[in-house]
């Protein structure tokens, strides 16, 4: 296929409070591109808008969320122009997503098999029985032992790692082209984290999946991704090939992130080494949103928000220093 798999142009998503008085610019003017089969890491502090960006791509926002402008083109089709019914046929079928919290992602009242078989039945019109046996295969594919008994069990009978694998099985059940994984390992313990990341990588190779991997852990990005995009206060402040960004970061925020990378193996440490508080997206500072914390801040940064500058081929940065 010609052209990239996913192209997002100037996407903005806001949360509007019930009375319309408070607007949170959770995603602001985001542009990114992803090739088929490639892996993009999205990094940022908690509250920087990563989850909102992901949910915007699938148009599954909470009631307060609105996509206010921009374009999302997936396999050449404009997702923002699709009807709800058309969008529904894309979700789970062509783009799948793994949510942040594996404990809460499964419905406590239905069996594992039922929940894994559900997308197959809805999208492929499979019969109950064939969907059920396919569900067993999928459990095997995510390396769950004794799938024939597991399908009949309820979520509370399973461990956290097991549940997260099941969520993974649901995600790949209809062989999507793109998988979005939103901090899928944050709540798992270390060994299980590593296993899960291996599993994701293997699944990606086996099914030629494109992967958007959301995390606040730059160490994981280095292991998993080809491309990385750094988010701050709803904006992409820097993006480019992983190797380039790790060796020659252009944005002061990225640089600070890299300096605060946790030591090997200690991948759970939060990004706390940067001075100052993460910004409140409902009341972002004017100009460059990073300026209150930036060591290189200039007068211009306070007055004017920097545009996206091209630093090198496929490497952009939103900082006046890159201009």
């Amino acid at each position, binding site marked *: 296929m010609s052209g990239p798999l996913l192209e997002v142009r100037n996407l903005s998503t806001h949360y509007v409070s019930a009375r319309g008085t408070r607007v949170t610019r959770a995603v602001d003017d985001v542009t990114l591109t992803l090739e088929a089969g490639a892996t993009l890491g999205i990094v940022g502090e908690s509250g920087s808008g990563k989850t909102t960006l992901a949910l915007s791509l699938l148009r599954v926002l909470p009631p307060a969320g609105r996509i206010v402008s921009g374009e999302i083109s997936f396999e050449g089709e404009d997702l923002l122009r699709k009807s*709800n019914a058309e969008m529904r046929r894309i979700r*789970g079928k062509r783009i*799948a997503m793994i949510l942040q919290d594996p404990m809460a992602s499964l419905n*406590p009242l239905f069996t594992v098999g039922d929940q894994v078989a559900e997308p197959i039945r809805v999208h492929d019109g499979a019969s109950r029985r064939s969907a059920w046996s396919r569900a067993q295969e999928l459990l095997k594919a995510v390396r769950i032992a004794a799938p024939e008994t597991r399908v009949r069990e309820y979520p509370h009978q399973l461990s956290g790692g097991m549940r997260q694998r099941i969520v993974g099985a649901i995600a790949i059940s209809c062989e999507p082209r793109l998988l979005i994984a939103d901090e899928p390992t944050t709540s798992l313990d270390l060994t299980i984290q590593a296993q899960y990341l291996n599993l994701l990588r293997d699944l990606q190779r086996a099914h030629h999946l494109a992967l958007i991997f959301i995390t606040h852990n730059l160490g994981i990005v280095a292991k998993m991704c080809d491309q990385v995009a750094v988010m701050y206060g709803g904006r992409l402040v820097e993006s480019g090939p992983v190797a380039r960004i790790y060796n020659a970061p252009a944005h002061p925020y990225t640089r600070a992130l890299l300096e605060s990378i946790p030591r090997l193996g200690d991948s759970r440490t939060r990004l706390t080494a940067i001075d100052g508080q993460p910004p409140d997206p409902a009341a972002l500072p004017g100009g460059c949103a990073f300026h209150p914390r930036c060591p290189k801040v200039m007068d211009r940064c306070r007055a004017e928000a920097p545009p996206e500058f091209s630093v090198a081929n496929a490497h952009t940065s939103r900082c006046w220093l890159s201009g």
Partner: protein
Amino acid sequence: MKGYILRRLGYSLVSLFLLSVTIFLFVRVTGDPAVLLVEPGASKDDLEMIRQQFGLDQPLPVQYGSFITSLLRGDFGQSFYYRTPVLELYLSRLPHSLLLAGAAMVFSLVVGIPTGIIAAVRVNRWWDSVGKIFALLGLSMPSFWVGLLMILFFSVYLGWLPSSGSGTLLHLVMPAIALGWVFAAAHMRLTRSSMLEVLGSEYVKLARLKGLPEALVISKHAFKNALIPVLTLAGINLVIMVNVAVVVETVFAWPGVGRLLYEGIAFRDFPVVQATVLLGGAMIVIVNLLVDILYAVIDPRIRY
């Protein structure tokens, strides 16, 4: 879980004990209990006899001992008016009460659940306001007044429904609505808040991300989970309905336990009044216990 059930059982026993003490003490400390326990218009000698019979001159703990032993033997005293054991009377009226409460429950759920769901799915819209007004009215209109208004409209003006009595399905309609009205409002409120909580959950989000049609997301993934607290409340409310039906049963001359209580007041038949309160309280304590145990059994996530 066993420990949890045992602890709940212990609490319930303490509650039942305190309940009997409360009722017992109220009868003794407020004036002369003999006056209450004797038939209206009885002579001085009769009063004296009652004092002897109930040992009212003995110390309170001794009196309580004999009071509780008769209760445990199922002896709630003799009705002055009907001249039969009160427990028998009570049990003969209970089926009517349960029928009425059951019908009222059906009404309250049939009205409360769908409106609650609609109010939750259409947050902050026109429907939600309608739901709020409906819920407020439900809580502000006394059930017996709703009953009287219905009699005025459907029996007197339109002549569609019988104004009192029992026997046919038509007789059941108005009492059930009058009794169920307040509960419909309560069930609506709870359905709405429970549904809102479930709709914001991660598993509903995942159901949407799977590409399920919205109707299936709501009817399968959200509805069932949202229903659990509503049905729990409904279980407790059924018993409460039996006990608050007294006014509605009086309005419609429905022959349930509530009507028995009213007759107890009207005929100054104190043993009947005392038994109704005791049994009503005990029923509520026991149902609360059952619901808690059932919860622990159904939902293994509860491990206190």
